[in-house]
Structures are given as C-alpha cells and as structure tokens.
C-alpha cells in the first residue's frame, strides 16, 4: 500500500512540476468595447518561468482584422512581457472571436493559441436590412423591424430614403421596437434606395437597402449544392 501511495504522490508531483517554460497569465481574454470604439486591444501577459531563454518563432492571427505584436523576439529566464492583440472592429457586430497562434522554440509548449473575444454592443437590431421587389410585382409596402437594445433606449427613429422612388414610414410599436414600412412608387424598372436609420439624439447611423430587382422576386428555399456529401 505504501508503494501505491508513493507512486501516486510521485505522479502528482511530476504532473505539477512538468510545466511549460513560458507561462501565460491568461490565454483567453474577453473584451467589451464601447459602441464608439474602433479597436479592441487585448494584452496577453507571460513570464519565462524556465531556466532557458524562449524564442518566438511566429505569431499568426486568424483574421486580417487582428494584428498581434510581441515586445521582444527572445525572452530571457525570469523575464516578463506581453503580446498585444489589436482587433479592428470596423463595421462588425455581435460577438467576435479571433485567435492568435504563437509558436516558440520551447519544446514543452511549441504552440499556444490565444483567444480574443470581443463583444460588440448591438444598439439597433434591424431585420431585414434588405427589402426587394421583383420587376412587375405589386408595389405593396414591406416591413423592416427595428429593435433597440435594452441599454440603448430609443424614443424616435428618423428614416430617410436616398431616392424619392421609395417611401419609408416609421411607426413605434412599443417596448423599444419600431416598424418601418417601405414602399416603392413603381416596380417597372430597376431602382434602389439606401435607407438611413438614425435614432434621435445618437450620432450613429444605420442602413438598410430597398431595391427593385431585375428578376421576379419569387420566394426561393435554400438549396445545398448538388453532389456534396454531408
């Protein structure tokens, strides 16, 4: 029995002491940028806890929208540093997960994947952002529903159409929701309009598109490509 306990203790000790030389404070960061922010920056801090220098071989990001920078190419024993991951928000919405793959010459931990999660606030949810009519279709109004986020109260919406060929009427349906009825004057020719949606008192502008398409607007069910194996 003593031998068993010794073996168990030894395995636990080996597991605990066998660690990578480059020790990361955290390999996953969640950021909550403000609505006006253009970038979300994550700092992945590390320390070389080993006795040998660790060299970065490569640092790759999963997306062109994210840039990662190392402070140094080689980390001497005991030294601290960080990899800065800068995510350019652009016109992205919702939750974005980007990764940074770090390769080092540390044999115990050659590849480390750092995860940057940015939760971009959605002020207005517009569904759909595109309404269309086929040529010759009856020019009946089509509805766009706008929902304001709970922490982004909207009292009034201002909607303008870039083209006089389309009219947009806004109606508040309560509980932070609005209904925009879009109607074309005619559907005989291919025309389009950009609808500018602006909440009262907010500098942010949202967009929707209305268009008369060249082909008739028959409803189409999504069809998977033929010949694929699922």
């Amino acid at each position: 029995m003593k031998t068993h306990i010794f073996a168990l203790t030894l395995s636990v000790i080996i597991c605990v002491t066998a660690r990578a030389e480059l020790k990361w404070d955290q390999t996953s960061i969640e950021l909550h940028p403000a609505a006006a922010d253009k970038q979300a920056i994550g700092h992945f801090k590390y320390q070389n806890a080993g006795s040998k220098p660790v060299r970065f071989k490569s640092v790759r990001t999963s997306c062109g929208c994210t840039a990662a920078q190392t402070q140094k190419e080689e980390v001497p024993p005991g030294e601290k540093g960080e990899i800065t991951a800068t995510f350019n928000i652009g016109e992205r919405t919702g939750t974005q997960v980007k990764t940074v793959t770090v390769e080092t010459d540390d044999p115990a931990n050659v590849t480390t994947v750092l995860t940057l999660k940015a939760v971009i606030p959605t002020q207005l949810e517009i569904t759909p952002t595109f309404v269309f009519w086929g040529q010759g279709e009856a020019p009946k109004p089509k509805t766009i529903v706008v929902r304001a986020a709970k922490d982004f109260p909207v009292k009034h919406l201002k909607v303008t159409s870039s083209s006089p060929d389309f009219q947009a009427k806004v109606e508040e349906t309560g509980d932070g929701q609005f209904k925009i009825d879009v109607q074309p004057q005619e559907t005989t020719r291919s025309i389009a309009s950009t609808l500018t949606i602006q909440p009262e008192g907010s500098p942010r502008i949202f967009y929707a598109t209305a268009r008369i398409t060249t082909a008739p607007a028959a409803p189409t069910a999504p069809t998977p490509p033929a010949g694929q194996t699922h």
Partner: protein
Amino acid sequence: MKFSLACQALILAAFSLLPGVGQAIYFRDKISWQSPIPPSELVSVDQARTWGDGAIWVDARPSEDFARDHVPGAISLNEDQWNELLPQFLAVWSPGKKVIAYCSAQSCDLARDVAERLRKEAQLPDVFVLEGGWEAWLKKKR
C-alpha cells in the same frame, strides 16, 4: 493485485480529469469557440464553377487583398467597410442567384462571418462559403 492496479489507474484518471473539469466550470461563460461551418453551407471550387452566371462571388478579404487579385467578377464585401460595400453587392444580387463567399484560406473566418450576416441580416437564401478559400481557387486555377 489486479483490483489494486485498476484502483490506481482509476484514481490517476480522476486526478488528471480534475484540472480539465475545473477549467471548464471556471471558463464556461468566457470561452466561445466558433463552431465549424456546416457542410451544407460549404461549396467546393469545382461545384461553384458549375454554377456559372447563376452565382455571385463575394471576396470577404480586406480591400487591399481584393485589389491585388480576386476571383474574376467577384465583388468585394468585408466587415471593415460593410455599410459602404453592401449596397454595391445588393445592386447585382437578384433572386435565384447563389452567393459564394471566400477569404484567404480554410482557416480564415472572414467568409463565414460575411455569409452569416448576409443570411441573418439581409435574409438572403443560398449563401455558401468556398471550401479552402482563395488558396483552393488558386490551386484549381493552375
């Protein structure tokens, strides 16, 4: 003896599971791995080519990459300039057309994100992601 060995193995296995379970509980709301693209939303280069004029190619890479080279006839639509580029894409879209979004490689997620927004926000049907992306297109071109 056999029972004792089995016991030890079980104890060791239980110990090795502890850190994993602990991490899963601690990070359960913090890590959100993106799920892979369902096969029904993917299309191969060969299949996409057979669609000919019935498909619109959407280049989801950054505008500089698009300017360097792109699939002939493709339209640039990326999330950096979504509001500016989307109307240009919608101007050529018509019902019945399939949409093929691509980015640089299999590992990139730009095409998936663009495809998702076209499906969810613009409510377009038949939006696919090119398997292997631009790299796969280049390979088949040779």
